[in-house]
C-alpha cells in the first residue's frame, strides 16, 4: 500500500484527521492545538515551590483552580500537589533537566505527558454554552473567570478545562484530554455545536466485531 513507507519519523496527533471547524460567524470554533510540551508535576508547593520557580522561572498557582502564565510557559493547578506544566515543544528536554537538577533534593515527580494529552481549543461567544452540554461545571462568567482551571467530566471523558483568554464575550478555552478519548470528545463537542452551525463530525465507528462467540472452536 502506498502509505506503507516507514521513512523519517512522522508525528501524528490523535486528531490529525480533523480540521478546525467553525459554526456561524461569531459563534463557536473547535481546533486541535499543535503539539506542545506537557508535564505533570507532583510536588508539595510548600516544600518545593521556590526551588521549582528558581529552576523554571514559573511560580506555582497561588490557589486551587488557578493558572500562572509566563510567556509561552504556563502552570495549571490540577490538585494540591499536582500541576500541569506547559511549554513550547522545543523546551521539553531543557525543562525536564532544569527541574531534575533544581529539585534534586526535594521529593517530586516530573513526568512528561506531552503525548498523553492533546488539547482541543474551544472558542467563541458560544464556547461556554457548548461546553455546558458536556460538563456539570458552572461555566457562567461569574463562576468561571479567565485563568480558571478545572478538572471534570466532559460527557464520558475526564479532562482539564482552562479558560485561557476572553475578550468581548468570546471565550477561548483549552480542553486537555487523553489521547484515546480525543476522537470521542471531538465528536461530542461538534455535536454540541450543531445548534450554531458546526458541521456534523461523524465519529469513527463501525469497527468490525464478531457477532458470535468463538471461544474454543475446533480446528
Amino acid at each position, binding site marked *: 500500500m502506498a502509505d506503507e513507507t516507514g521513512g523519517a519519523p512522522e508525528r501524528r496527533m490523535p486528531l490529525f484527521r480533523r480540521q478546525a471547524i467553525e459554526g456561524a460567524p461569531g459563534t463557536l470554533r473547535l481546533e486541535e492545538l499543535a503539539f506542545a510540551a506537557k508535564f505533570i508535576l507532583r510536588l508539595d508547593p510548600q516544600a518545593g515551590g521556590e526551588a521549582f520557580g528558581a529552576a523554571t522561572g514559573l511560580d506555582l498557582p497561588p490557589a*486551587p*483552580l488557578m493558572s500562572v502564565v509566563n510567556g509561552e510557559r504556563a502552570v495549571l493547578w490540577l*490538585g*494540591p500537589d*499536582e500541576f500541569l506544566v506547559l511549554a513550547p515543544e522545543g523546551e521539553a528536554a531543557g525543562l525536564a533537566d532544569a527541574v531534575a537538577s533544581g529539585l534534586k533534593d526535594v521529593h517530586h515527580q516530573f513526568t512528561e505527558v506531552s503525548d498523553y494529552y492533546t488539547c482541543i481549543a474551544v472558542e467563541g461567544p458560544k464556547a461556554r454554552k457548548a461546553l455546558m452540554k458536556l460538563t456539570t461545571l458552572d461555566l457562567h462568567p461569574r463562576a468561571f473567570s479567565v485563568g480558571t482551571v*478545572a*478538572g*471534570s*467530566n466532559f460527557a464520558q471523558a475526564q479532562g482539564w478545562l482552562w479558560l485561557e483568554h476572553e475578550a468581548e464575550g468570546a471565550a477561548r478555552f483549552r480542553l486537555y484530554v487523553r489521547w484515546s478519548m480525543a476522537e470521542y470528545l471531538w465528536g461530542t463537542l461538534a455535536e454540541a455545536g450543531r445548534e450554531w452551525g458546526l458541521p456534523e463530525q461523524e465519529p469513527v465507528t463501525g469497527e468490525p466485531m464478531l457477532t458470535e462467540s468463538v471461544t474454543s472452536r475446533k480446528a
Partner: protein
Amino acid sequence: MFVITCPYCGERDLSEFAYGGEAHIARPEWREDMSDAEWAEFLFMRTNPKGILAERWMHAAGCRRFFNMLRNTATDDILAVYRIGETPPKVEARLPATPSGEAPIGSGNDAVKIIQPGEGA
C-alpha cells in the same frame, strides 16, 4: 445526585466523585496471631448507619484527592467535609422523624409526606 464540596476544588456535581466507603477504618498492623474474626471485622463488617456516616470520597474527575465527609444517610444531607487525617467535626443532623430512624421522606409511612396533627412547623 447531590453537590459535594471538595475541600480543594469547591462545589462539584456528584458525578465527578468516586465513593470510597466508610471512613476511619484503619488497616490493622500485620500480626501472626490476628484472628480470622478480627480480620473479618476490618475486611467486611460495616456500621452502615441510617443517620450520620463518616465516609471517604475521591474527587476522581478533578484533583484526585481523597477526603472525608459526614453525611446523613437518611436524607443525603451533607453535614461536613474534612481532609484525610483530620478528626471529624461535631455536627447535628436533621434527625429522622420516627423512632427507628425512619427517613422523613420516601418510606411507606404516610406520616412522612404530610404534616401530622401536633407536628410543628
